[in-house]
């Protein structure tokens, strides 16, 4: 039996003549936080989309705990324990914080929204419509929606986008803590290298739709191909 919780095998996705993903393999182990980095257009968000069912792979396979879920809808993947967030804040602006977390909880049996609100420090604004809370709070709410029901796998597409350095690192700490305590496997797309290096166990680097490199944070920092393609000499 595999100890990979989420696995993508030969994932490919084209947009017209452009190969956004080209035979990408990825496997993330139980409880691991995997960073997914690379320059714009590398295929990071497309990989998250294919794994989550937002986009369809051509020929490849997506495995969740060893089961082939390639043909499942996003709803079915969610019920099997896969949750995701989006690059842009993707919440329900007219619903209050509590209302939307409650809606999220109804789709997952046994979900406890009080613990999610508490962990993400949203309790105080429970009755406030999401459109009226600050951007930083909205990003935490976005993450909270994905965390309702303690998913097995969490796919995060730039959760710290638009946050200040202080907010980004606070979010990273929450994420690291919850991943440890709730045993959530996380695949994280992020441009903020400080966030990535502070919480990721391993990193996969994509470039032009292909896997450029994979390794621990220490290995990636000094990988000359990664430095040349993405990190630059100051990383």
């Amino acid at each position, binding site marked *: 039996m595999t100890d990979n919780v989420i696995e993508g095998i030969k994932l490919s996705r084209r947009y017209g003549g452009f190969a956004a993903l080209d035979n990408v393999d990825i496997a993330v182990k139980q409880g691991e936080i995997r960073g997914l980095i690379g320059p714009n257009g590398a295929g990071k968000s497309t990989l998250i989309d294919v794994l*989550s069912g*937002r986009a369809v792979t051509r020929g490849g396979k997506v495995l969740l705990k060893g089961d082939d879920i390639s043909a499942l*809808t*996003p*709803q079915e993947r*969610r*019920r099997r324990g896969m*949750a*995701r967030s*989006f690059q842009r804040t*993707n*919440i*329900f*602006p*007219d*619903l*209050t914080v509590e*209302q*939307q977390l*409650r*809606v*999220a909880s*109804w*789709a*997952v049996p046994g979900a406890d929204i009080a613990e999610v609100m508490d962990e993400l*420090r949203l309790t*105080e*604004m429970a*009755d*406030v*419509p999401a459109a*009226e*809370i*600050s951007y*930083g*709070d909205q990003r935490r709410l976005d993450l909270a*929606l994905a965390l*309702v029901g303690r998913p097995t796998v969490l796919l995060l597409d730039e959760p710290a986008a638009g946050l200040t350095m202080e907010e980004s690192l606070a979010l990273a700490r929450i994420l690291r803590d919850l991943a440890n305590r709730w045993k959530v496997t996380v695949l994280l797309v992020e441009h903020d290298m400080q966030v990535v290096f502070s919480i990721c166990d391993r990193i996969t680097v994509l470039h032009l739709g292909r896997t450029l490199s994979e390794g621990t944070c220490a290995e990636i920092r000094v990988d000359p191909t990664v430095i040349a393609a993405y990190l630059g000499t100051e990383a």
Partner: protein
Amino acid sequence: MTSLTASGLPASRRKPAGYAALIAVAVLALAVGAALPWLVPTKIAMSLLAQAMFDALLATSVGFLILQNGRTSFGQAAFFGLGGYAMGVLIARQWVAPEAAVLIALILPTAVAFLLGLVISRITGVAHAMLTLAVGQAFYEVVFRWRELAKGDDGMSFDLPAQMFGFSARKLQDPAVMLVLAWTVLVLVLLGLALFARSRIGQVAAAIRDNEERARFLGYSTVMPRALVYAIAAFIAAIAGILQASYNGYIAPQMFHWSTSGFALIMAIIGGAKFIIGPAIGAVVLFYIKDYAGQFAEYWPAIVGVILVIVTLTMPRGVVGLALMLWRRGTRR
């Protein structure tokens, strides 16, 4: 006192009214309804108010689609007409018992809307609006041209049976009786919609309206809740059609026409489509403006148009939104 959230924003804590408060308001409204024949001075005034209630129900139907599905319909008159025609034709032809005619007149538009909702709920924006317009006008063209059904563009009169559901059906054409009935139905519909909005399915539908993609990734089918909202909205429109047809003893293609849908939409916007009660208030306001303006100007629709422009520019949340804002300001002082 306004509290501050962690983000430093004033928390406009919007706790919805509790169930007990809702039911208390509804009971009070029903009591007012029962007293209307004594409160409204003349039969003509009662008749006008009863007709305003039919408009209020149709506008509530249109507003409910906007509120729960975030979709604008230009064809809601299709279900209004279908309700009225199903009852009128079945009673006139005596094909089924009058009670069965009423039930069919409720079920048929609801079922048609549910099936249509499974398809058109996937379409957004202008395309959705145009599709609802096309559906409504398709029904209009059928009843307009099909003379054997209900005398085509002439429309058709029909007599109500002596008894329906154990009551004297002809009393439905008494303004006082119809006013009390229509008011009661409107109050119960508004209460039902308020309870629906607080229910699990109502909140899921609101979430889908706000952000369909996120709802899908939370694990929800986004089509069924929307189709259900279409069906409920059609059910309300059908009730309006049945009441109007019963009161007038007459059905005509105008019931299906896009202008009927358009006026219902205007009523919903003027009253405030973001509120369950908004369209009903808008319908009553607009009904009386129409009636008043019609006495002085042949081109009263132009006056209605001007009012719509003013409301859209100055009161984007409608009359109810404005009243609520003024009330909140007043209570803050």
